[in-house]
């Protein structure tokens, strides 16, 4: 199954805003995508609660998988999103 392993680039990790952006993007993908951290069961990437529960921090390696037509394109886009520092974009929050 096509997969991408990528290091989370957002400084606060896959939390709050970065998680919301990623989940929204995964939810609008044409096929189901799963995400996992090493040693844990893959969870649906369009599930905010499941993605938050991964507890992925900045620098954590995560793997995304998808199967079907266009899987590679979908995964490339999502991997690029994960690798960016989404907190640095549009000002971010000062939490």
């Amino acid at each position, binding site marked *: 199954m096509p997969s991408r392993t990528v290091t989370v680039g957002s400084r606060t*990790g896959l*939390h*709050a*805003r970065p*998680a*919301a952006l990623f*989940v*929204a993007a995964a939810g609008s993908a044409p096929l189901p995508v799963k995400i996992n951290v090493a040693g844990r069961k893959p*969870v*649906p990437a*369009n*599930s*905010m*609660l*499941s993605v*938050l*529960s991964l*507890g992925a921090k900045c620098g954590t390696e995560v793997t995304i998988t998808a199967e079907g037509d266009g899987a590679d394109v979908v995964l490339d886009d999502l991997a690029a999103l994960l690798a960016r520092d989404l907190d640095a974009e549009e*000002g971010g*929050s*000062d*939490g």
Partner: protein
Amino acid sequence: MGEAAAASSLPADAPTDISAGQPVAASAPSQTGVPAGRLTGATPGLIGGVPGGVRPGPSAEPLRGIGVSPGFAAGPVCRAGDAPRMPSPRVVDDVEAELAGAAAALREVAAELGRRAEATRDATAAEILRAQVLMAEDPVLDEAVADAIRAGSDAPHAIDAAFAVHRQAFLDAGGYLAERVADLDDLRDRAVAVSSGAPMPGIPSPDHPFVLVATDLAPADTAGLDPARVLALVTEAGGPTSHTAILARSLGIPAVVRCGGAAGLRDGMVVAVDGAAGTVRVGVDEATVADTRRREQERRARAAASSGPGRTADGWSVELLANVGSAADPVAGAEGVGLFRTELLYLDRAQAPSHDEQVEAYAAVFDALGGRKVVVRTLDAGADKPLPFLEQSGEPNPALGVRGVRLARRDPGLLDGQLAAIAAAAARTGATAWVMAPMIATPAEARDFVARARAAGLASAGVMVEIPAAALRVRALLREVEFLSIGTNDLSQYTFAADRMAGDLAELLDPWQPALLDLVAMCARAGRAAGKPVGICGEAAADPGLAPVFAGLGISSLSMPAHAIPAVRDALAAHTREACERLATAVLSAEDPTAARAAAG
């Protein structure tokens, strides 16, 4: 450290807008059709499961919590509308209708929070709300709710059960996720209310300014807060990085979180809140309300006007330092940090925080200080401030038990690990990091601590003087350490054998007590003779009246909540060093606190 930015984004008089003619204890607020009671019993371990009904009298000790957003405010309490009571389980006849009802409830909650996200002008709040919308729309949650209904549950119980799974996962993860539990509970309460035909829970909207009290506040609540109406926030749960704290700071509203006694606050009670000290005085009179308002105005005026290092009128230096618990606390106007409390990092944890996590937290504070001195106090926990991962059996008198540096007797790895993380953070940021141990009684304990600090690569190691034994043998202590910091709160408690929580004994804990000042004077004198700094980091350091007395005794630094610095700076600047020394001599010869104050006045 956005205090200055937060304060300037606010109308100067907003949070203290208690019009003089208005009866502050006005009628109970009109809560918009909110059902009473929290989901008692539905979720074991629900935060805020504190029994209500405790009503502290007007003369009681203030309620204590963690001050997370500085400022003074006073006014009548309005409690946030509590969550709906869980209806009794019911037999489901029409599974399809139940499924549709549950799905509609979740959709309605998502839509409502989406509307709030659009309506708020606070970018932080909007972001949090949009994350909540995604949680309410979560397909995994949807499926779990549907599964439970197909297995025979009604919609409210199915929703509660589905959220409970994620709630537990968040709690188990600890840290950031554990603090997001309030978000989940808010979603659950809303969805349960809607699916059982009740209105969504919400915050009160009385027609007068009020102090908002809640078990915890959800982002949906705080996003709608009007700083012109909400004088202060007080919550039973939450932490320094909870929404309540973050949003209170961004709105410039004084806030106290983790205030267990807040469970006893009822609508209409008049309280005075100190958002830096973390205290809530209950049942205050109108004069106190007016006084609090005046203090807040003065605080703002001073903060705007005063700056620079601590100096007597003739230029003698007394360092003015800030007490902080995390990088979120303000340090504006401080020459450094004199007390970095590291307990917050350890609270509510199933395990000790990892090395990396500690390094991040310490480095964040070091970075915020940009090279100014930071005195880090190693973990000050014990049976009085219990931590889940330290298996502490009950002690008959926790204040006299295994707490502070005494924990290292049982678990030296915890202390060594913390020192290593502090050293790593200092190395990474190039910070001037000093470390000190709490609850030192003997020179041998100090020697052991300093050796551990040096082994970790930390050259500036000192200890706190909180135990009279340490003060009595201060010259021997000073041979072991680079500096001393006097914790006046505990030193009072142990010198006078008076529990800090015992309201009846408050006069014994007065920092103007001559016996306490004698011990301070002994330490200061010995420090000067040894050429080593002796500072103060208890409440007394924030007392502008005592500042020139301490300067006259030879104290080299005063560490306090940053908001208190301007008044202390002004008090020092009003006296020459010689005048300070005269004051100190006069105060030490006074017989009691009243006479001591009179001698200083």
